[in-house]
């Protein structure tokens, strides 16, 4: 369904037969599907699943329903990396080779990795998880400030390029990039499955979790690591995608009404992937020749969902 929609219309049954290997589709259609639509759909699935899972982990870890995958400053770190490349790079009039997709992904990963390292160093010194949350937000503010200083001095073209990156994009990923993305996401998912039990004991708060035999320091380290792998790789390959990580765990909790991670974890992966596919389909504006930035769609879908949940339920249980 998602694959059949785009600026060139391809009928649904043609897509299906093309995917199944028959030759009903024309060569052009075949090409569009295999090198553009398919990678995009897979990117959407990976992005939605990875962001929702890291959102779920962060909400449990910080015992805060407003926590999302980016509270630790991971996306702002990535933005800083990209901004340094695009805006800072332009100040020195560097060659345009630097601004290709691959180097953007590398800059974003480097940026989020550096912020992550800072957070991990701080996390080993700070005992209070809430302080960690605030520190993450502060890191976000610092990088945002740095980015705005750079954009003030940047050239217009590079500024535009930066803004386009920050819109988020599920397209223009090559199969080899998708392979890396998939490996990282699956690694994050496997790690979190191994940590479902400590996640469940964290539902009682850190003190109780400790009394149940949990190694708080180690669990904290691994959970931050998982989130950075998941949210970091999404940001690196698809840009900062808003709201999915925050909204999907809440949506899932409304349906399953249990905080048990053994139920929530697979459900969140599934819902995240589905919602992201829907957002992507919407952003292609069926029938039109251009597509909207996917970040705008996720916010347009995500924010009302969160508001609706709050109004309907008085309090956000988690």
């Amino acid at each position: 369904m998602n694959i059949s929609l785009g600026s060139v219309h391809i009928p649904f049954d043609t897509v299906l037969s093309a995917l199944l290997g028959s030759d009903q589709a024309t060569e052009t259609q075949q090409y569009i599907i295999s090198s553009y639509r398919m990678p995009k759909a897979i990117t959407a699935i990976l992005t939605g699943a990875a962001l929702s899972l890291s959102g779920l982990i962060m909400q449990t870890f910080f015992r805060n329903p407003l926590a999302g995958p980016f509270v630790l400053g991971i996306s702002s770190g990535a933005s800083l990396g990209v901004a340094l490349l695009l805006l800072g790079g332009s100040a020195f009039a560097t060659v345009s080779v630097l601004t290709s997709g691959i180097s953007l992904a590398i800059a974003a990963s480097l940026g989020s990795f550096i912020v992550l390292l800072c957070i991990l160093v701080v996390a080993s010194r700070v005992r209070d998880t809430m302080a960690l949350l605030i520190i993450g937000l502060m890191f976000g503010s610092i990088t945002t400030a740095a980015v705005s200083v750079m954009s003030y001095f940047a050239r217009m073209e590079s500024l535009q390029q930066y803004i386009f990156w920050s819109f988020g994009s599920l397209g223009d990923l090559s199969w080899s990039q998708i392979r890396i993305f998939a490996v990282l996401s699956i690694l994050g998912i496997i790690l979190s499955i191994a940590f479902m039990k400590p996640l469940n004991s964290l539902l009682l708060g850190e003190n109780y979790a400790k009394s149940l035999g949990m190694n708080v320091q180690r669990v904290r380290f691994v959970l931050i690591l998982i989130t950075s792998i998941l949210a970091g790789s999404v940001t690196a390959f698809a840009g900062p995608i808003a709201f999915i990580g925050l909204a999907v765990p809440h949506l899932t909790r409304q349906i399953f009404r249990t905080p048990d991670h053994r139920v929530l974890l697979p459900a969140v992966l599934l819902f995240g992937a589905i919602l992201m596919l829907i957002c992507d389909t919407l952003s292609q504006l069926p029938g039109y020749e251009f597509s909207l930035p996917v970040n705008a769609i996720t916010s347009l879908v995500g924010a009302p969902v969160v508001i609706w949940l709050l109004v309907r339920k008085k309090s956000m249980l988690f």
Partner: protein
Amino acid sequence: MTEGYPVLSVKDLLMGYHTSGENIQVSGSVNFDLFPGELAAVVGPNGVGKSTLLRTLAGVHPPLGGDITLNNRSLKSYSAKDLATNLSIVLTEKIPAGNLTAAELIALGRQPYTNWLGSLSETDKSVVRSVLEKLDLKELHNKACGAMSDGQLQRVMIGRALAQDTPLILLDEPTSHLDIYHKAYIFKLLRTIAHDTKKTILFSSHEIDLAIQLCDKILVLQPREAGFGDPCSLIEQGSFQSLFPSDLIKFDSRSGSFRIKK
């Protein structure tokens, strides 16, 4: 009721904080032994270190000096995992996950015994069932803990500690926020649990009257010294008279309670 060896043995324990190279001592040295099946209360004025004592006994807070022995083994020698099968706690803090049902919450107490996924075995399920039955929580088992009254929630939290199946249970002010009926209810419940299951229960409390009536042992914490014994002998020693400044309230040793001076 002093049978076998003590579950918890505390010798010359000094509690306090270590700040900027200086030791700030909270109370005098503490000595006591608790045996299986005993219900004991820690009483004392605000700020004398009741919570610090419980945190120290739970291994969260390092002592300044002295020895704590749990089941004939030094508390320091326990790993977090070992400790989880020997000691369970009930805290005053709120549970962040309001969506957890009573049954799920109690089942979390089985975590030290479950596999890496945390799935419940038949034994775990039967333990949870018997805890629900024992604490009269059967009709509550599907209720979210965010929607429970304070008294119900406290019962569930005690149930969770009970499901952890440890020889020693520590509770920090289990009856705060409760009305007088539910205070008495929790006290009686703890007493029944201790006597029936032979678990040792130690809790901090401001309800000195109730503690005198229902506890086997009481630890009276005071800034300089700590008294320990059964309620009657503590009354005879006059341990409660000196607990508070005598300008407002006075301990009446005949009724075993405090009276306001008129």
